[in-house]
């Protein structure tokens, strides 16, 4: 079964997708992780406008022969490792759900706030998870969900993970969760970029010597 990985890149993603991280652009780290995943057959970058990620995705998929599994990944998550990509693809085979998302525990305290700036209730963190990407969806399921949503797609959130999980849950598609990697943080400010540099450096230190010293 063929596995197609798609990285939609919006104009607002571009600023950080092009920023240098350990000597190469953030987006290149993302593409390298997808190409480095044993399960992925093909990787494409899909330039899209901010408001229309899902319609662009539907359009791109309609122009291609159907993939068995589509992996959708965020261009601003440069540290999600190839093993995480393989795990979301493998999760589709293991579970009855035709979609799988990596998740992390919510560590923040979340409160509802009214229009006057007063606090309402405090959410029970245990009932919630933070979603990250890559998200894997059976190709046929994704195609059907995109087609069924039709014009509603244009109203989707500009956040890739939110818009895709919203689409799938609105269309009644079961979505399995699996433990994400804490490294799948989204690089959207200078502090994140500095953090990503530091994490990459510590990852290199931990890597066995044989992987580091490549013959030239």
């Amino acid at each position: 079964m063929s596995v197609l990985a798609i990285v939609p890149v919006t104009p607002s993603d571009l600023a950080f997708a092009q920023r240098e991280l350990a000597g190469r652009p953030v987006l290149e780290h993302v593409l390298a992780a997808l190409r480095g995943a044993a399960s992925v057959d093909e990787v494409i970058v899909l330039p899209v406008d901010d408001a229309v990620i899902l319609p662009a995705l539907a359009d791109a998929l309609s122009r291609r022969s159907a993939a068995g599994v589509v992996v959708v990944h965020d261009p601003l998550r440069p540290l999600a490792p190839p093993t995480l990509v393989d795990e979301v693809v493998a999760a589709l085979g293991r579970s009855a759900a035709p979609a799988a998302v990596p998740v992390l525990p919510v560590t923040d305290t979340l409160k509802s706030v009214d229009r006057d700036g007063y606090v309402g209730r405090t959410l029970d963190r245990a009932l919630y998870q933070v979603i990250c990407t890559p998200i894997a969806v059976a190709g046929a399921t994704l195609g059907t969900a995109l087609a069924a949503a039709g014009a509603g797609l244009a109203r989707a959130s500009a956040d890739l993970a939110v818009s895709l999980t919203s689409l799938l849950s609105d269309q009644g598609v079961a979505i399995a969760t699996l433990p994400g990697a804490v490294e799948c943080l989204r690089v959207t400010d200078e502090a994140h970029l500095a953090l990503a540099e530091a994490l990459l450096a510590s990852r290199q230190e931990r890597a066995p010597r044989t992987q580091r010293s490549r013959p030239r």
Partner: protein
Amino acid sequence: MSVAAIVPAAGRGERLGPGAPKALRLLGGAPLLVHAVRALSRARSVDMVVVAAPPVEVASVRALLADHELGAEVEVVAGGRTRSDSVRRALASLPPGVDIVLVHDAARPLAPEELVDSVARAVRDGADAVVPVMAVTDAIIRVDDGGRVLDPLDRSGLRVAQTPQGFRRAALEEAHRVAAANGSGSLGDDAALVSRLGIGVLTVPGSEEAFLVTRPIDLVLAEAALARRRARGVR
């Protein structure tokens, strides 16, 4: 009007991994607790800081804080089993002249002095309870017991709560008294306990730098943020 800041720091913080209590993990060469206390004590609005330490470590925490140059008067008292117990014990130790109390997490070492002052100011200006908040940037979903996704969460009406949280002293004391009586002291933060009394909790803008250090990755993020702050010439 006098302002005291309480730092409950008696917990273990297991999510950071095994080792020293969370508040004593090092960041830029100094324990998280020292960073947190330093920001509070340097804030112009704060007159005194009370740290609730693990009971067996009161003397060593007192010595640790004495080693660092800190602005305001700093007291160390024995904390309790839960965070709420620790806040209650610190509250009980406050002198009568204190009428505004801030409660701050030791695990938010980089909360800036300006944030501390703005929370204290909002209480002084008449709010009974104040919590600094940030927009929710994570994509969050609701899940069922089996780990299946139920639906994405609408983030528009939600905020991430930070600390220091500020209170009229009487409101915070009453909230902790009621929580202790109901045995519900360990549920929620201080703002949630006060809210349960029907007292309005006002929000003020939080700070990017006041993030919680709870996982190993947060410590790396804090190191990076501290390095940037030092590069800008801020200690």
